C-alpha cells in the first residue's frame, strides 16, 4: 500500500510534534483558554409554557407537527389514529392484510397497550431483526410509516435523540416517508447543554455515545435547499415527522 518505510501514523505524529513543539504554533490573534463548560448556544424559549409545548412549537418551526396527550393511557389510541390518517385501510368493512409499520420494539416505544390497540385497527408492528438480510430489508424499505420512542428531546430546538440499540433500529426513523415519534414529557430537556450536563454529572455521557453505535439528533423532517434554495422535504429521510408528546406526570430529567 505504501512504499515509505515509516508508517504514515508515526510520520504524521512526528511531523506534527515537530511543528508544534517546543514553540507553540503562532496564531494570528489570541484565543481564550478552553472553556471548562462550553456555553449554551441555543437557549430554551422564555415564558411560562411547558417544556412539552415549547418543544412542540419549535418542532413546528422546522416543519414538524405534534400533539400532547395528557394521559399515557390515551397514547395508543392517538398512535392508531395517526397511522390510519397516513395509511387509510383499503377496504372499509372487510379488513385485508394488516398494515405494517416499521417500529422499535414496543418496550422501547413505551406506550402502554400499544400492540393490542393497533391490532384492533389491523395494524402490525414490524420490528426488524437483521436489516442486512435481503428479505427483511426489502420488506422494511416498502413501509411508509415508522414508529419510535426517543431517548431525549429538547425544548430549545424541537430536536430528539435517537440512539441505536437493541430493538431500536435506525431504519424506523429513516426509511419510511412518515415518522411518528413518542416523546415522554419527562425526557424533554430545556437545551442540549442541560442534557449534556445531566449525563456528564451522572458519569454516563461517554458510555451513552460509545455503547450506542450511532446517536442521532433529529430535528424535523428531512430537507434540502439545493435547488435554488427552495425548501423541499423528504429528500432521503422522512417527509413527515409527527411527535406525540405523552405527559407522563414526571418532571423533566433536568
Amino acid at each position, binding site marked *: 500500500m*505504501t512504499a515509505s518505510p515509516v*508508517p*504514515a501514523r508515526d*510520520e*504524521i*505524529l512526528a*511531523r*506534527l*510534534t515537530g*511543528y*508544534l513543539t517546543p514553540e507553540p504554533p*503562532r*496564531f*494570528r*490573534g489570541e*484565543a*481564550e*483558554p*478552553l*472553556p471548562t*463548560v*462550553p*456555553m449554551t448556544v*441555543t*437557549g430554551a424559549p422564555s415564558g411560562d409554557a411547558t417544556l412539552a409545548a415549547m418543544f412542540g412549537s419549535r418542532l413546528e418551526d*422546522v416543519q414538524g407537527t405534534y400533539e400532547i396527550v395528557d394521559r399515557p393511557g390515551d397514547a395508543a389510541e392517538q398512535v392508531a389514529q395517526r397511522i390510519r390518517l397516513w395509511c387509510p385501510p383499503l377496504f372499509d368493512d372487510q379488513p385485508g392484510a394488516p398494515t405494517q409499520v416499521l417500529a422499535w420494539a414496543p418496550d422501547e416505544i413505551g406506550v402502554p397497550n400499544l400492540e393490542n390497540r393497533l391490532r384492533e385497527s389491523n395494524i402490525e408492528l414490524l420490528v*426488524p431483526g*437483521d436489516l*442486512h438480510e435481503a428479505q427483511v*430489508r426489502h420488506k422494511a424499505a416498502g413501509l411508509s410509516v415508522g414508529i419510535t420512542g426517543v431517548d431525549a428531546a429538547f425544548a430549545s430546538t424541537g430536536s430528539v435523540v435517537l440512539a441505536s*440499540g*437493541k430493538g*431500536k433500529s*435506525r*431504519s424506523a426513523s429513516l426509511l419510511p416517508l412518515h415518522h411518528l415519534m413518542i416523546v415522554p414529557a419527562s425526557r424533554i430537556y430545556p437545551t442540549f*447543554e442541560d442534557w*449534556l450536563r445531566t449525563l*456528564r454529572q451522572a458519569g454516563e455521557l*461517554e458510555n451513552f*455515545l*460509545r*455503547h450506542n*453505535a*450511532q446517536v*442521532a439528533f433529529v*430535528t*424535523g*423532517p*428531512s430537507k*434540502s*435547499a*439545493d*435547488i*435554488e*434554495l*427552495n425548501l423541499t422535504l*423528504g429528500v*432521503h*429521510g*422522512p417527509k413527515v415527522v409527527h411527535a406525540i408528546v405523552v405527559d407522563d406526570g414526571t418532571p423533566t430529567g433536568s
Partner: protein
Amino acid sequence: MLDVHAPFESRVTQALADDHLRTALDRATTRLAERRDLAVAAVDNPALRHEVRAIRQFAITHLPDMLQQLETNLIANGCQVHWARNAAEANDIVRDIARRHGVRRVVKSKSMLTEEIGLNEALETDGIEVVETDLGEYIIQLAHEPPSHILAPVIHKRAEDISDLFQRELGMPPTTDPGVMCATARQELRRKFLQADMGISGGNFAIAETGTICIITNEGNGRMVTSMPRVHVAVVGIEKVVPRVEDAFLLWQATTRNATGQAVSVYFAMCSGPRRPDHADGPQEMHVVLLDNGRSRIIDRGYPDVLLCIRCGACVDVCPVYREIGGHAYGATAYSGPIGAVLTPLLADDPTSVCELPFASSLCGACGEVCPAEIDLPRILLDLRSDMVNAGTSSVLERVAFTSYATGMQKPWRYRALVVVARWATKLLPRNGSGGLTKLLPPLNAWMRTRVFPRFARRSFRRLWRKRSSGRGIEPSR
C-alpha cells in the same frame, strides 16, 4: 460551465460574462447571508465566536495528543483506524477496503475532503460505481462538474438547468417544481442506498474522548450512508478533532447557524463504531481514515489559523468577489471563496502554482468579520501575497512599479517630481468630454477599459496649502 482547467484570467472572464451564473449567485449568496445574520443575531455571537476559536485552537495546538486519544477510543469502539499522509495513500486505503469486501457500489455523503483527494475517480478506476447522495452533489455528479460552493454545490445552477439535466439523465417529465425534482432524486437514490455495499462519509468533527465521528446533514443521507451499507468508511482530516463531546455540540450549532441560518441541522449523526451484534442495522465494519494531505505542513508554513476552519461557508456567502465569479473561477479545487483563496495555495505542494488566488480580493474584510472561528482571513491573504512576492511570482512591471514607488515616496522632492511628471505625462493622453482620462500607461491601462480616471490636479495640495497659509500670514510648518 466554465473550464476549471483554463488559466485564472480566462476563468474569471468566462464567469463574468455568464449572466445566469451571476444572477443565481447573487440570489443565493444574498439569501444565505441574510439568514446567517438573523441566526447569529439570535445568540450571543461574540461569545460563541470566542469559544469556537478557543476549542479549535486548543485542538490544533494539541493535535498529536488529540489524535492519539481519538485513535485509542475509535479502536476501543471497534473501528479500524488508518492513517494517510496524502491523497494517494488515502485513496489506496479506501480502494483496499473496497477490494477486500468485493464492493461494487458505493454511496457517499457530502465530503469536501474526498473531493479534494479525488476519491471517486480512484474508486471508479477499479470499476466501482460511486454515487453522491447529497442532492446537490448528486446533481453536479450527473452534470460532471465540480462543486462551486463548499456547502451549496449547485448554487450556480438555476432550477431550469437542473430540470434539463434530470430530464436527460433520469427521464423525468418536464417540470421545474423542486418538489417533483426532489422526489425523482429520492426514488433514484433510495435504490442506490439499498444496493450499496459500502458507504463513504467525511466527518465534521471527531471527538477524541469518545472516539466519535460526527456528521451534519439536512437530507438524512449522512445517516443513510452510515447505517445502510455493511461497511462504513469515514475519511476525516486530522484537523477535525475536538477534545470533548460538549465541544462538538458547540461547533455543530456554530456551523449550522453560520452555514444556513438554522439553529441546528436536521440530522447530526454521532457514529462511535460498527453496530453491536444485537442491533438491527448499522455497518458491520467501520473504518476511519485520518488524512493529513498537507495539513500538518500548513502549520509549518506559518498558517495554523486556517486549520481552525469549520467549513461553514459564511465567508463565501459574504464575499463580493465570490458573488461576481462563483466557485469554478477558483479553479479545479474543492474550496472557493475566501477560505478557498487561502486554503488552496496552502494545501498545494507549490503554493505559487495558484499564486493568483490571494490577490483576487479587494481586502474588504467582510469574510474576517463573519468567520465563526475568528480567522483573520484578510490578514492571511496579505501574508500570502507577501509570500508570493518573495517567491518571485510578480511581474517585472509590478516590481519596477513598486520599486520606483518606494524610491519616490522616501523623499518629498522625489515624490513632488514624480507627481509633476505624472501630471505632464497624463496631459498628453487622450481625454473624454469632461476631461477624464481615457487611456493610461500599463499597468494602469486595465483601469481605463471600463472606468474613467481623473486628471492630476493642476496645483497639488501642498501648493494650495502654501498659498492659503501665506494669505493668512502663517509660515508653512516643517
